[in-house]
């Protein structure tokens, strides 16, 4: 009888713990997660979002499904874990271009190094004499909003001659675009080139180009858009369907923007004032606007990327000698700061900031700022420790 009682007690205690909430793990707060759609999508749009989500996060490529044979990683999600910034183990290397005259190393595997290879193959080596730069994967959120900022708005923010005399110019990258990319309504062109905005050098026109390129250059997967195999340099059959690429593009377009946390906290509000006060916001623009879109949830909306999507001279310390499009080697697109505080959740508990992940804290990232950002950095250095703390607290709330 005693045993029966013990057994029944154990059973009931299990049922009890099970029914209590802490035992069924609660979901993370919405503002802790980067993955998830913008609000206001229709049911049909949710379906396509989920298809893209699966292709982006769970579809792993293998030798059988077309991986490589040379590649950098086996899936989009390997580099953009939870749609957040990437870890240095998936850092990629681009090489072979030093100025607007284009990439001189295309025949030697440029512009991207596929240093990993399927068993039995060898990965690529950086050719002698090629300039190069290393890129750690950026956060992948709110991209649909960024895609919809009009060229006219970008040009209005740019100030190539620094007419307002604040020491901060900001320019657009003019680049050639592949024939499969459909130009947006109202796009501005100049000598056959268009304003490009994605990537650390702002050298990619839109999310379709970025996606087709990523499949091809990062994973070694050919598509109807990018049919040339990175290993053989020959056109081969598509290894992914056009529909899957479209789903992934839709997924990227409709990923929500990161939600700022602790917006009411006094430190955060004060930190934000300092951020504006010492001119960080001149490049890390708080608010941009989208134009028209066939996705109603994205059309004509304000959003807060903390970036102007323009290129800035960041000084000699951030000059790797490599570039894309018409950007100079020392020019970088203002890194969007939204989601900055959540970086450690996707970078294995650490910060790996700036284009190559060299900065291991937010402060370190600020201290690397030079060129157009030099005076803003100096203003930061002159802040009291308490004010620095407030500024960082604000940045972590993003």
């Amino acid at each position, binding site marked *: 009888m005693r045993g029966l009682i013990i057994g029944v007690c154990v059973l009931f205690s299990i049922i009890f713990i099970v029914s209590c909430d802490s035992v069924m793990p609660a979901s993370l707060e919405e503002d802790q997660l980067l993955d998830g759609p913008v609000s206001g999508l229709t049911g049909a749009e949710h379906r396509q979002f989920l298809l893209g989500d699966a292709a982006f996060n769970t579809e792993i490529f293998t030798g059988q499904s077309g991986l490589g044979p040379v590649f950098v990683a086996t899936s989009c999600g390997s580099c953009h874990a939870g749609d957040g910034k990437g870890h240095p*183990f998936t850092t990629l290397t681009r090489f072979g271009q030093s100025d607007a005259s284009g990439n001189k190393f295309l025949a030697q595997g440029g512009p991207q190094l596929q240093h990993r290879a399927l068993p039995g193959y060898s990965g690529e080596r950086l050719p002698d004499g090629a300039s190069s730069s290393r890129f750690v994967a950026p956060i992948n959120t709110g991209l649909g909003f960024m895609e919809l900022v009009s060229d006219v708005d970008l040009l209005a923010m740019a100030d190539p001659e620094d007419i307002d005399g604040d020491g901060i110019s900001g320019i657009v990258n003019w680049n050639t675009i592949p024939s499969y990319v459909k130009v947006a309504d109202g796009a501005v062109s100049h000598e056959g080139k268009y304003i490009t905005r994605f990537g650390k050098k702002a050298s990619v026109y839109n999310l379709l180009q970025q996606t087709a390129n990523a499949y091809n250059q990062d994973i070694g997967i050919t598509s109807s858009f990018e049919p040339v195999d990175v290993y053989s340099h020959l056109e081969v059959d598509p290894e992914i369907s056009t529909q899957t690429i479209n789903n992934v593009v839709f997924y990227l377009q409709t990923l929500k923007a990161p939600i700022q946390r602790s917006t009411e906290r006094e430190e955060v509000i004060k930190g934000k004032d300092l951020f504006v006060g010492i001119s960080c916001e001149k490049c890390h623009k708080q608010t941009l606007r989208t134009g028209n879109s066939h996705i109603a949830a994205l059309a004509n909306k304000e959003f807060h990327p903390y970036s102007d999507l323009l290129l800035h001279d960041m000084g000699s310390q951030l000059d790797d000698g490599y570039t894309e499009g018409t950007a100079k080697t020392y020019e970088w697109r203002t890194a969007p700061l939204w989601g900055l505080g959540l970086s450690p959740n996707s970078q294995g*508990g650490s910060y790996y900031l700036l284009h190559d992940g060299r900065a291991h804290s937010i402060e370190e990232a600020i201290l690397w700022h030079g060129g157009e950002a030099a005076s803003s950095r100096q203003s930061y250095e002159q802040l009291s420790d308490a004010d620095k703390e407030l500024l960082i607290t604000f940045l972590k709330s993003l």
Partner: protein
Amino acid sequence: MKYILVACCCLGLMHVSIAQVDSSLFRRIPRDTSFGKSMNMDAVYNRPFLSVGKVPVATGGYVESDYTYSTMDGISEGHTFRIPRLTLFIASSLHRKIKFLTEVEFEDGGKEVSIEFASLDFMFHPLVNFRGGIVMNPIGAFNQNHDGPKWEFVERPVAMTQMLPATWSNVGFGLFGKKYSSSWAFGYELYLTNGFDESIITNTRNRTYLPAAKNSPERFMESSNGQPLVTGKVALQKKSIGEVGISYMGGVYNKFQDDGLVLDEKRRVDVVAVDFNTTIPVWKTRIIGEWAWVHVNVPLSYGPQYGHRQYGGFIDVVQPVKSGTIFGFSRSVLNAACRIEYGDWNVGKFEETGTTIGDCFYAVVPAVSFRPTPQTVIRVNYRREWSRDIINNPSSRTAIIQLGISSYF
């Protein structure tokens, strides 16, 4: 004469429905009166079989079915009912020294049918038995002793099924034997079989994953590379203490040549496992554990995604809290149990950062099981699992409630 197979089939000394090991019995096959506590290696024969009259064919099987409710980081897919497996076995004695046994498994409601075991055993001497056909590679103990009704847990131990990878059987030949005295037993097994293939490091799990090799449709017809997999085990059992086993499995897994042309260097997979089980006499507490280490030669240029080293295991503690007549079942037992398991799919550090590679999990599974008869179990499990991705980002937390039934028939 102490026929080894008869010994295998005899009742365990302490079979009395503490379960998870020797709960099951041959019903019609004569018992050996000598010390014959069966070892893990005997598990394929140590099952309840039914035979009719004097026909030398015996048959049996088991079924498992469960209900699952799981939540991962607060997101639940709701309620699921499953029938993960139904297994049939047929054994026959062709001669007093020649036995045949086969085990056919219908997985996931019949979606997959596989022959898990089909071997002919010839006994030349208790220490020298020859076995050929589809054999169960003797790596660890769970692989040999995996029947659902023997366990108090709905899920099989993750490290043993996803690292080792139980149930893992292959076509091959080998020897086994057993020697015992009144208080000791020693057993060994040594087989050459077909082995793994490259899918263990190129699969959609995005990690080194030995079970991927089970998907190859050709593996029962030809070796992936012409290199045999060697599997060997020795086990020692002391009456009233328990059994320990140490086992090894290794071979070349990749297709290093084709048509006489060299494709790659030979790359090996090597696995070592230890297992033990014991019963604490006073409380009749049953403790069962197993741990395995996997080493795979992964090409360096392939990157760190597919690990070179893995390890993991589990420990089960099963405490009978009441035995005797419960609800009118005269030989029933009520157990409280707990499993702790751990697995690291990718042991090592990232070259780029010097930080530890994640891709690991641990889980705690408290359970209650009721055995109305030794061959039948109703079990309730609560599983709490913490797992980390390769980068070691904050763990995802999973909780699973399971109610399962499993029985020999």
